[in-house]
């Protein structure tokens, strides 16, 4: 019994992955095709076929060339990119100019700095700055420090203030607890004056 295959809006089987035809017959083999593995661009995070709509398209292409050379070659053969929109200038004019969409900028990572601030000669507080640019939640990190060093620890603006001198310990703890933080990301800025 041949079930009719539903019409699906796929016209370019040339793209980086082929969508299996959606059929009403749901046998095991059908299911084995899923989940589909879609490759996403390392520059703009989109499926390759949408890279052309983002601002860094040239960077995207260079990334394809490096990581998916086969796909890159095929795409370049077809023309500039997977799919130029240039074939219908009338339509484009009517719909307005080519609005280039900016890729979400990765927040520039800054150094994490750890320093000591003197509070009345013998007492210190440790100040940690720059954590948020590494995707660390300040609130959570402050809690972690407090728990770990059994002391007061709080978020103050864009820095964390820990009651006590824990410069060394903080540096060790950060590298240990956060896989995204490397030792080189942290600098000891020493004694700070307020």
């Amino acid at each position: 019994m041949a079930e009719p295959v539903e019409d699906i809006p796929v016209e370019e089987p040339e793209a980086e992955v082929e969508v299996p035809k959606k059929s009403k017959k749901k046998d095991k083999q059908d299911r084995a095709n899923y989940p589909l593995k879609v490759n996403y661009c390392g520059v703009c995070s989109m499926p390759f076929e949408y890279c052309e709509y983002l601002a860094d398209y040239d960077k995207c292409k260079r990334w394809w060339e490096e990581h998916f050379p086969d796909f890159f070659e095929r795409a370049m053969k077809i023309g500039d990119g997977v799919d130029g929109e240039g074939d219908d200038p009338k339509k484009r004019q009517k719909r307005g100019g080519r609005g280039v969409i900016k890729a979400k900028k990765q927040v520039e990572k800054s150094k994490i700095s750890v320093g000591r601030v003197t509070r009345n000669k013998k007492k210190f507080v440790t100040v940690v700055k720059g954590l948020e640019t590494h995707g660390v939640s300040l609130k959570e990190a402050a809690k972690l420090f407090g728990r770990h060093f059994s002391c007061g620890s709080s978020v103050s603006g864009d820095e964390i203030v820990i009651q006590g001198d824990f410069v060394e310990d903080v540096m060790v703890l950060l590298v240990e607890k956060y896989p995204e933080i490397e030792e080189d990301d942290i600098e000891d800025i020493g004694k700070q004056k307020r």
Partner: protein
Amino acid sequence: MFKKFVAKENVSGVTQMKSSAIRGVRAKLIEDYPGLEEFQDVILPKKESYNLVKCHERIEIIAIGGEPVFFRQRDGPYMPTLRLLHKYPTILPWQQVDKGAIRFVLSGANIMCPGLTSAGAKLAPAEEDSIVAIMAEGKTHSLSIGLMKLSSEEIHTVNKGIGIENIHYLNDGLWHMTQIK
């Protein structure tokens, strides 16, 4: 919904979901999306941790094993994230916009009727208020998840104004939220 969404700022809390709540969600999803049923064991595995991520503006995201897979707003219907849809494209009905509409959809604009009725578009029958995958002329993967503001029939006859509301699209804040910590 997620144009200005930044996970770090908009998430107000993450809680573990109870198994009764998970059962409820599973039943609701299968009811809403018959295409999901055949994949329910892999999309909604029994032995995985389910987190409910509460965000501002009463947005809730369900993360399974740390991965955001469904979301909803104000007790509305649950919708799959695009990353899940890319893995199982058949769980939603498809609507196809013409090539010219792509860049607008990608900047978060709602989908206008003419972009759904022109030569490059394909409009499948769908009811008002149903959730659909937005595909595009000449492309393989979905670029947005939308809510039908009119039925397909009305889109054809009216043929102006908003046809489908753009709920979640490639490169928006939810797209960039790949893991729940």
